[in-house]
């Protein structure tokens, strides 16, 4: 090969390399710029939802979510024998719950908190912002951070839309074809009943429970309570299990010890937060619970 030919080849390689590098850099810039944009920021809600729906499941919008939640909440209240309406307790649970809710991943939702009128230990949530804690759970707690931990776990189920995933699957099975198909009372009833069948007997899938533990623990720490609140509350629940093995909590939640260990593994990441347990305030506020009903 002649020198000129070698030079020409060398130049050509340089030119090709340069073009390649420019193309790569250009692509990187373009990706960097586009990466900051999300589909829902550049498309109207309906269009983005439509695109997501294409070829997959019909999405569950907020109005629909709240409607399912209302029906599930009614069923929960019915099943657990109504609400405990002790004013100071209702207010306290709502204060702790709202303090969490405004710092949650879905502060745009209106959350509602209530105490179920049973001494059984359990806590439940329904889509759209309904959170329930039983009087028995409230009595089992000893600090505000423990109460916050339990409520945060339930809030996390809502913010992560765990129940909606199940309802979406049911919608697919029901072959709901259009965006307002769920409003039909027959379809709505079948969807809610189908959801309740699994939810009230088996609870959420274990992976969702773990996610709710993780997100809930983070939320508790974010507001400023002791990040170990949920773990400590689970310890109380575990201690109580021997005395009340028939509580429905144990059927709907995974192994408590395993959950405590998993949460404990998360706690070092919050060690610089030194959150508060607010045990004294808890005792003052739940004094009405000292006399079992």
């Amino acid at each position, binding site marked *: 090969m002649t020198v000129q030919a070698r030079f020409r080849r060398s130049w050509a390689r340089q030119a090709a390399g340069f073009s390649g590098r420019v193309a790569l850099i250009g692509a990187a810039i373009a990706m960097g710029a586009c990466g900051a944009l999300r589909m829902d920021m550049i498309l109207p809600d309906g269009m983005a939802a439509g695109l997501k729906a294409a070829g997959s499941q019909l999405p569950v919008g907020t109005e629909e979510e709240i409607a399912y939640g*209302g029906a599930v909440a009614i069923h929960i209240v019915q099943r657990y024998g109504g609400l405990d309406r002790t004013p100071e307790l209702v207010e306290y649970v709502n204060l702790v719950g709202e303090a969490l809710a405004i710092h949650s991943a879905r*502060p745009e939702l209106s959350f*509602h908190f209530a105490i179920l009128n049973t001494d059984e230990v359990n806590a439940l949530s329904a889509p759209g912002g*309904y959170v329930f804690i039983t009087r028995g759970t409230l009595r089992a707690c000893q600090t505000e951070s423990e109460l916050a931990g339990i409520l945060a776990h339930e809030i996390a189920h809502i913010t992560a839309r765990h129940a909606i995933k199940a309802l979406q699957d049911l919608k697919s099975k029901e072959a709901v074809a259009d965006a307002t198909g769920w409003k039909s009372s027959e379809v709505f009833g079948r969807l809610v009943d189908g959801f309740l069948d699994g939810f009230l007997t088996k609870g959420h899938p274990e992976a969702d429970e773990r996610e709710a533990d993780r997100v809930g623990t983070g939320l508790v720490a974010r507001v*400023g309570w002791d990040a170990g609140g949920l773990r400590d509350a689970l310890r109380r629940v575990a201690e109580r299990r021997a005395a009340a093995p028939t509580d429905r909590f144990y059927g709907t939640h995974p192994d408590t010890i395993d959950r405590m260990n998993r949460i404990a593994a998360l706690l070092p990441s919050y060690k610089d937060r030194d959150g*508060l347990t607010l045990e004294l305030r808890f005792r003052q506020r739940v004094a009405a619970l000292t006399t079992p009903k």
Partner: protein
Amino acid sequence: MKPSPSGEVFWGARLQVDRRRAGLRWLARALAVCAVWCAFDAAPALAKSVYVNTRYAKLRAGKTSADAEVAKLAYGQELTVVGEASGFWQVRTADGKSGWIARLWTADSLPSQSKVAESLGAAARGGSSGVAYTAGARGLAPEAEQYATEKGDYGAAVGAVKEMEKFEIGEAKLEAFLREGKLGEFAEFKAASFRPGSGAAICAEQGRPVCVLRGIR
């Protein structure tokens, strides 16, 4: 034409010069690309925006939660950061108001349009000013009520859920609760004990460390 030996030297020298020039051209182009890139990248740093991520945010006159309220901020509202202090951003709103907001109540990215719309809807249902926190009576969905009616004996439960929805914690009460518990934006700390970069500042209450500066992410 076959080059002579002297031609080889000439071509070799020319090749070296051209390679140096090509290298310089490549360097200049790379610098130009970097300059454009940096200009894109630096723009947000010079005028950083944050977005309100709660319906309860307040613009305050100073960099503590004890300072007076300047304005209520709407969920999703864009704020231009003009300064910072421990746990707080100093910001300016689009309508020219300046003040401080707890970092805890801001996000670096704009909430989705559906979240903002839902927030406005919730505020409207709550019937308040529409710019701040409203726990709220939004009313049970007609589909849910119909479901309960078809189930039969669910009247008491429907009433209980409606009652649950109507229960409101006023903004003042929630703020007092957070303040009393030193939670959220009301976490207190001693500036002197703030450890820069640690993300935490120990405060003292009754002679023992009880809380940390929150909102550092």
